[in-house]
C-alpha cells in the first residue's frame, strides 16, 4: 500500500458504523455490542460483550472446544499419548499443526508429539457405539508404546451417541495399573469457542494428574508457569531466563510439559499466569486445594519480562534472588536495546492491529510499544469480558446457557497437601508492595483512546477494517493471513507463528523486533502494480536507443 494512502483520517465511530452497515439488523445489533470504541466516559468504562455465540454464516476466526482442549492445552505435552476418539479428521488436523516444541533430549525419553492417534470411527461405530473400539484402541496404544498416561478426547459424535469415555478410561486405567488413562468430554459443539475446551482440559488435568507425583521436587524458588505453550520455543527462552535467575519452574501448563511435571505442580510455591484466559481455572484450583497463590505475569516484551521477574522476586522476598534478577536483567538488556535502536527508526510511527487469542492481543502490544508502533485496533478471538475489562468485573458476569454446559468442578483444601505459602499478613504486605495477587487488568486499559476493541472479529469486518484504517501490520491467525496480505498489508500470525520465534523473553524481543522490521519494510509491498499500470499511457512514439 503506497505511502500516499497513509494519511487517511478516521473516526472510530464512523468506522464502527461502516463495519455494521451491511449486516442484517439482528446481526448488526449483536455485533454492535462486541465492537467497542475505547474512550473515556464520565464515571464508567465502556463495556464489551464477549464469549457469546458465533453467528452462523458469518465467517469467524474461531475454532471449537476440541481445538481448545486437545489442540491448545494437551497438544503441547510430550510424554502423554493423546488419543482422539472420533472420525479421523479432528485428530488429523491437530497433528503437528501448532508449533509447540518439545525437547525430549535423549532418544530414550518418551515423546509422542509427532504421532497422531485416533479411533477413526466408522459408521458402524456411530450406529452401534464406539466404546468397544475405544477400549481396543487404548489397549493397542498401551501395547505398542507403554506410555505413562493416555489422554482420550471426545469429538462431536461421541457425546451424541453417548459413549461413556470416562468409564472406558477408568476401566483401562485400573486394568493397566502403570498407565494413567483419563478422558476429556470436549465435543466440538460445546461452548462458543476454544475457550470451553481450555476449561475442560484444566479440570481434567487438575483432577487426574496434579498432585499425583510422589517424587520431591527441590529448588529454593519454585513456581508454576501457567498458560505458556512453547510456540516457536517461547517456553524455552523463559525457562532459560528463570534458570539464570535461580528460579525453579516446576511445571509449565502446558508447553513442553510432561506427565510428571503436571503431577508435581502442587509442589510449587507460586503460580505465574501467562495466558489468563486459558488457564486461570487451574491457578485458582491450585490455590484453593494446595494454598499456592498466583500472580499474572507477562514475558512478552523485554520490559514486561523484567517487570514479571521482579514481581516474582518480590513475592519470594529474598534479597539474593532480587539481586540476581537485577543482574540478569542488566546482562540481557544491552542486546535488546542494541537491536531496538537499529530497527526503531524504521518501525516507529507505524500502526498495527491485533486480533488473537485470549491474551496475545494484549501481551504483544508491549512489543509494539517498544517498537514505537501504535495499536489502532485489537480484540480477542475467544476471550471473556474479564480479559477485556479486568477480573474485577467477574462478579458482575452472568453465566449464560452455553457456559453453563461446561462443567465447573468444585475443589476444596486438600486435607494432607494444603499448605498456605504465605500468611494473610504477608500477602497483605506483598499486595501493598505491588504484588497484585489473582489480578488481571485486561486489554482495554492498555489500548490508547479512540481505538477500536473488537471481540470475535470476523473475516468481513477484518477486510473492512484494513480498508478503512490502513494499518501497516495486521496480526491474527493462518486463516486470515492471506486475505489481509492480498490487500498489501503484511500479516503476522500470533497464535502459532507462521515462522520464527521465540518472541518471549529477552531473546524473543530481539527476534520480534527483527521480524516486524522485515515485515513492514519488505520490498515486496511496492511491487503490486506493474509499470504499465502506474503509467498506462502509450507514448505515441517509443524512444529507441
Amino acid at each position, binding site marked *: *500500500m503506497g505511502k500516499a494512502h497513509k494519511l487517511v483520517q478516521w473516526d472510530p465511530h464512523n468506522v464502527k458504523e461502516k463495519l455494521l452497515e451491511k449486516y442484517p439488523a439482528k446481526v448488526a445489533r449483536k455485533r454492535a455490542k462486541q465492537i467497542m470504541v475505547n474512550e473515556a466516559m464520565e464515571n464508567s468504562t465502556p463495556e464489551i460483550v464477549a464469549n457469546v455465540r458465533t453467528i452462523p454464516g458469518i465467517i469467524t476466526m474461531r475454532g471449537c472446544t476440541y481445538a481448545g482442549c486437545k489442540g491448545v492445552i494437551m497438544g503441547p505435552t510430550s510424554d502423554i499419548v493423546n488419543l482422539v476418539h472420533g472420525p479421523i479428521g479432528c485428530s488429523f488436523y491437530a497433528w503437528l499443526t501448532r508449533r509447540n516444541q518439545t525437547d525430549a533430549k535423549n532418544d530414550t525419553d518418551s515423546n509422542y508429539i509427532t504421532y497422531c492417534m485416533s479411533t477413526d470411527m466408522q459408521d458402524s461405530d456411530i450406529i452401534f457405539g464406539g466404546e468397544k473400539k475405544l477400549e481396543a484402541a487404548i489397549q493397542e496404544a498401551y501395547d505398542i508404546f507403554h506410555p505413562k498416561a493416555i489422554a482420550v478426547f471426545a469429538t462431536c459424535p461421541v457425546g451424541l451417541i453417548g459413549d461413556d469415555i470416562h468409564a472406558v478410561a477408568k476401566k483401562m486405567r485400573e486394568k493397566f495399573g502403570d498407565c494413567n488413562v483419563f478422558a476429556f468430554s470436549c465435543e*466440538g459443539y460445546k461452548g462458543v469457542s476454544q475457550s470451553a475446551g481450555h476449561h475442560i482440559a484444566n479440570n481434567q488435568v487438575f483432577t487426574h494428574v496434579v498432585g499425583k507425583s510422589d517424587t520431591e521436587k527441590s529448588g529454593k524458588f519454585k513456581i508454576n508457569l501457567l498458560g505458556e505453550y512453547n510456540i516457536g520455543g517461547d517456553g524455552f527462552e523463559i525457562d532459560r531466563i528463570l534458570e539464570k535467575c535461580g528460579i525453579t519452574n516446576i511445571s509449565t501448563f502446558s508447553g513442553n510439559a510432561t506427565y510428571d511435571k503436571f503431577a508435581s505442580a502442587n509442589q510449587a510455591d507460586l503460580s505465574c499466569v501467562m495466558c489468563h484466559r486459558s488457564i486461570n481455572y487451574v491457578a485458582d484450583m491450585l490455590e484453593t486445594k494446595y494454598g499456592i497463590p498466583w500472580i499474572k505475569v507477562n514475558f512478552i516484551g523485554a520490559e514486561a519480562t523484567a517487570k514479571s521477574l521482579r514481581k516474582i522476586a518480590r513475592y519470594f522476598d529474598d534479597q539474593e534472588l532480587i539481586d540476581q534478577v537485577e543482574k540478569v536483567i542488566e546482562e540481557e538488556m544491552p542486546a535488546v536495546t542494541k537491536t531496538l535502536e537499529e530497527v526503531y527508526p524504521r518501525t516507529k510511527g507505524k500502526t498495527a492491529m491485533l486480533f488473537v487469542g485470549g491474551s496475545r492481543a494484549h501481551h504483544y502490544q508491549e512489543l509494539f510499544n517498544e517498537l514505537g508502533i501504535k495499536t489502532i485496533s485489537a480484540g480477542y478471538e475467544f476471550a471473556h469480558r474479564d480479559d477485556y475489562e479486568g477480573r474485577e468485573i467477574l462478579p458482575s458476569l452472568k453465566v449464560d446457557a452455553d457456559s453453563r454446559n461446561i462443567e465447573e468442578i468444585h475443589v476444596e483444601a486438600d486435607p494432607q497437601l494444603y499448605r498456605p505459602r504465605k500468611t494473610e499478613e504477608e500477602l497483605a504486605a506483598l499486595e501493598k508492595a505491588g504484588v497484585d495477587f489473582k489480578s488481571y487488568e485486561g486489554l482495554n486499559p492498555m489500548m490508547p483512546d479512540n481505538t477500536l476493541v473488537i471481540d470475535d472479529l470476523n473475516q468481513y469486518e477484518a477486510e473492512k477494517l484494513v480498508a478503512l484504517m490502513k494499518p501497516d501490520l495486521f496480526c491474527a491467525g493462518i486463516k486470515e493471513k492471506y486475505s489481509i496480505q492480498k490487500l498489501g498489508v503484511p500479516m503476522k500470525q500470533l497464535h502459532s507463528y507462521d515462522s520464527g520465534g521465540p518472541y518471549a523473553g529477552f531473546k524473543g524481543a530481539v527476534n520480534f523486533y527483527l521480524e516486524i522490521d522485515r515485515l513492514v519494510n519488505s520490498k515486496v509491498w511496492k511491487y503490486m502494480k506493474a509499470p504499465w499500470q502506474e503509467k498506462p499511457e502509450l507514448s505515441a512514439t517509443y524512444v529507441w536507443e
Partner: protein
Amino acid sequence: MLLRHTPKEIKERKALMINPAKTCQPIGAMYAALGIKGCLPHSHGSQGCCAYHRSTLTRHYKEPVSAATSSFTEGASVFGGQANLIQAIDNIFTVYEPEAIAVHTTCLSETIGDDLPQIFDKARKDGKVPEGKTVLGAPTPSYVGSHVTGFSNMVKAMAALAEPSTKKNGKINIIPGWVEPSDMEEIKRLCAMLGAEITMFPDTSGVLDGPLTGKYKMFPDGGCTVSDIKASGSSIGTLALGEWCSADAARLLDTKCKVPCSILDMPFGLKATDRFIDVLRTVAGASVPDEIVKERGKLVDMISDMHQYFYGKKVALVGDPDQLISMTEFLVSIDMQPVHIVTGTPGKKFEKCITEIAEEAGITINVKAAGDMFLLHQWIKNEPVDIIIGNTYCKYIARDEDLPFVRWGFPILDRQGHQHFPTVGYKGGLRLLEQILNALLDRKDRDDPEEKFELVL
C-alpha cells in the same frame, strides 16, 4: 529420532489408527466447492471443522480460503441444525453475496440426522435464497470413507445441478478429480490444443493460485460457473478422471441426463496421459496436434536420457487412490520399483488395481487401503527404499530413515510450487521426473565418496 516409538516389528491393529494417510470427508467437499465460480463453501456442523479445513487448505495453497459454518452449539446439536443453517444462508447471501452456497455436512449434523434438501426447501420458502442464486449440498459424514469421498460427493452434488436436455451442445464434460489448480489449468490447455470444447468442474485454477495485486477478492475469477455446470447435461459425454474422485458424478450425469461417460485414470505419467489424449481425440473427433506429440516425445526422451538413475530404485508411496494408481503405473513404466504403497482411503479395489500393475510388471508390492503412515514406516524399516513420495507428513519418516523425499499429493504444507506447476500431462510428467531425479541425484552427490563425485550425470 522424530518417530522414535515406531517399532520395526509389525503388530496388527484393529482399532487404533496412527499417523493417518487420510482425513475426513468435509475438507474434500470444501476443496471441490471452491471450484465453482462465486461459490462459498459452507460447513454444516460445529465451527471447528470449518476452521480446521480452512487452515489446512490455506497452508497448502498459501492463499485465502473462505468458507462459512453453521457454528452448532450444544442446543443445535440436540434440537437440530435447521435454524442455524437457514440463518447462515441468509447471512451469507446478505453479507458476502456469493452466486452459490455449497453446503456439506459433518459427523455432527449427520449423526443428528439433519436433512439438507428439506432445510434448503425451507430456506427457499422463507425467501432466504435470492432469485437466481444457487444452494447445493452434499452429505459428507466424516465417519465414512475419506477426504476423497467427500470430494467425490460434492462433485456429485454439482452433477445433480445438471439439467437434462434433448439437444446436445457438442461439449465434453471433464471431471478432473482432486488435482491441483495448476493441473486443472494444464488439462484445459491440453483440451484447447486438441480443439475439444469442454466444461470442466470443479475448476480451482484461478481460485487457489491467485495473484498479489493489492485487491482481495473473496470470489476470484476462476471456477466453473453454475450455468456451465447446469449445461453439462447437454454435453455429448463425460470424461471422469479417477474412479474414486469423479466416477459417481459422471454416472449421475449418465442416469440423470443421459450423458454417457468414460472413467479414466488420472493423467499422471506417460501411459495414463496417452490414454486420456487418445480418448479425448476420439470423442472430440479431432486429430492430435504436433505440439502434443512433441510434448509427449520430450517426456519419453527424458525417461531414456536419465534411465540409469531411475532403474530399479525402490519407492515408498503414500497418497490417494486415483493418484497412486497412475503414479505407480508411471514409476513402473520408467523401471523404478514401487515396493510399499499405502492409502488411508478404504477400498479393496485399490489394492487390486495396484496388485494388477505389480503382477504385470512381475514385481511384488506391499499395498494397503485404509492403512496409515505408521504401517508404511514399519514396512520401510523392514524393507528399505531409495526414495519416498507423498505428502508433507512423509518428512518425518524421510528424516528418521534418511530418505530422499519428493513431495506430491495432499497436503503439502512446507514447500511451494505445486499450485503453479502441473504434474498431470506430459509436461507434468517432465516435472515429476525432474523432481524424482533431483531427489535421487542430490543424495548421490551427498553420499558419493570424493573419488567418485561426478561432474557429469
